[in-house]
């Protein structure tokens, strides 16, 4: 927490205290340090609980101890209502984790979003991920009013304005700027495919310094996009973390492909799952292999593991993949 004026609050050192400032860094957080140090990073995400119980958050985060450099706290993912991302990030920061605040433009206008950014920064949150968000019709409150005042790129512009120009969009000065490491997402597989690299560049131009991608099951397509990104120098300007996931069965994969727009799963993956005796284990094996393959692709700086309802297998898969090269990520137990 940022209690830097000892006359008001005596500084209390705890695991969530921001790290000392470092030249060239946007934030005082650990996640940015790992990436800037050149380590291959691993991130994962927790589905915030449908509960007001803080322990639920800690139990979910604990599953990633030692294998994740940052934990995304989703913001009403799939337009379903859960505990807020700001609250989850505050709880996690307090015990020392390095969470990534996801902000979806679906639910809040620019007034609320800027307030949340300041509040999160005051609570010690160092990372933020700008998302447009799923439409309300995808979730459990389809009757809600969609906001979409900003889009993800306007949100990145907003974060950059607040951080670098120390002002609100209105021009009103901030007494202290929110020093946050900003990122966004990209889906390398949606049409028009030729536009993907343009969209990535646009996000980087708007202020994204790390990118977490949608599920990557199609390695040739990902490689193609990454080689273009390398050629354009984009991988020098932003850290790219490839999204990987585990599929519980061929049936799940088919369902995801048919019902979740933007999820691209090649037929070979489904055929491989179908031919396996234990489909769940095969899904995890595929995930491990994908992580290893991603690490070999030039310009990829890490992986983002999405294992909804299979979070308990993340640690095992990351360890098995060896992508951390024996590096142990920060966790409360070890410190």
């Amino acid at each position, binding site marked *: 927490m940022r209690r830097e004026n000892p006359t008001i609050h005596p500084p209390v050192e705890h695991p969530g205290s921001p790290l000392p400032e470092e030249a060239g860094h946007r934030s005082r957080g650990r996640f940015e340090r790992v990436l800037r140090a050149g380590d291959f990073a691993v991130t994962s995400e927790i589905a915030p609980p449908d509960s007001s119980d803080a322990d639920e958050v800690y139990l979910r985060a604990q599953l990633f101890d030692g294998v994740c450099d940052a934990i995304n706290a989703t913001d009403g993912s799939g337009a379903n209502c859960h505990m807020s991302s700001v609250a989850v990030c505050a709880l996690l920061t307090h015990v020392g984790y390095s969470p990534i605040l996801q902000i979806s433009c679906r639910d809040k206008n620019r007034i609320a979003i800027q307030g949340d950014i300041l509040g999160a920064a005051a609570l010690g949150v160092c990372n933020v991920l700008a998302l447009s968000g799923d439409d309300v019709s995808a979730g459990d409150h389809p009757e809600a009013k969609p906001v979409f005042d900003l889009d993800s790129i306007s949100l990145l*512009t907003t974060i950059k304005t607040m951080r670098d120009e120390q002002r609100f969009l209105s021009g009103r000065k901030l007494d202290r700027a929110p020093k946050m490491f900003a990122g966004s997402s990209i889906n390398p597989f949606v049409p028009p495919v030729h536009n993907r690299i343009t969209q990535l560049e646009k996000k980087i131009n708007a202020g994204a310094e790390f990118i977490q991608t949608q599920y990557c099951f199609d390695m040739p397509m990902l490689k193609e996009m990454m080689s273009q990104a390398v050629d354009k120098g984009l991988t020098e300007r932003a850290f790219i973390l490839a999204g990987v996931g585990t599929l519980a069965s061929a049936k799940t994969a088919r369902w995801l492909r048919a019902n979740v727009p933007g999820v691209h799963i090649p037929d070979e993956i489904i055929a491989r799952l179908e031919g396996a005796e234990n489909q769940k284990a095969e899904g995890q094996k595929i995930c491990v292999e994908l992580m290893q393959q991603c690490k070999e692709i030039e310009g990829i700086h890490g992986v983002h593991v999405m294992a909804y309802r299979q979070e308990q297998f993340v640690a095992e898969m990351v360890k098995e993949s060896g992508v951390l090269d024996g590096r142990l990520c920060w966790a409360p137990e070890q410190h």
Partner: protein
Amino acid sequence: MIQLRHFATRHARAYEIVYNASSPVILAGIRVMQKVFGNRLDGVFTWFEKHSKGLLFDCQMCGNCVLSSTGMTCPMNCPKTIRNGPCGGVRENGHCEVKPDMKCVWVEAWSGSQKMKHSSKIETVQFAPNYQHKGSSAWIRLANEQGIGVEVQHEA
């Protein structure tokens, strides 16, 4: 109207030529008329803009027009009103994730922009619209901004 909107995307290059030729004339015309009649004809201009652009582009009168930067496709028809699209939810057939029967506005915008001479305008980062301008005329605003030498962010 949706057919006309698709037509505009398919013929984005022709629309671009017409746009480049007509836009200075329209804006100059508005400035001249404003000098003579003051603001009394603003309602007429707005009505004309709303109906002509509504017919041709399915214009939603956001008042912050960026048509020539978005392949002559109005981004306000995107259910998420994304100004820098597409989002990550485009279906494999190029349709919208929210309205499966509709082609993604940004897939159209991209294909329109590729036909245009100034195709790289779609790469410009657009900030979210100013909602105070919703329903008002982008033409009048642009005519006035150009008239007083203000750096122009939006286009007619």
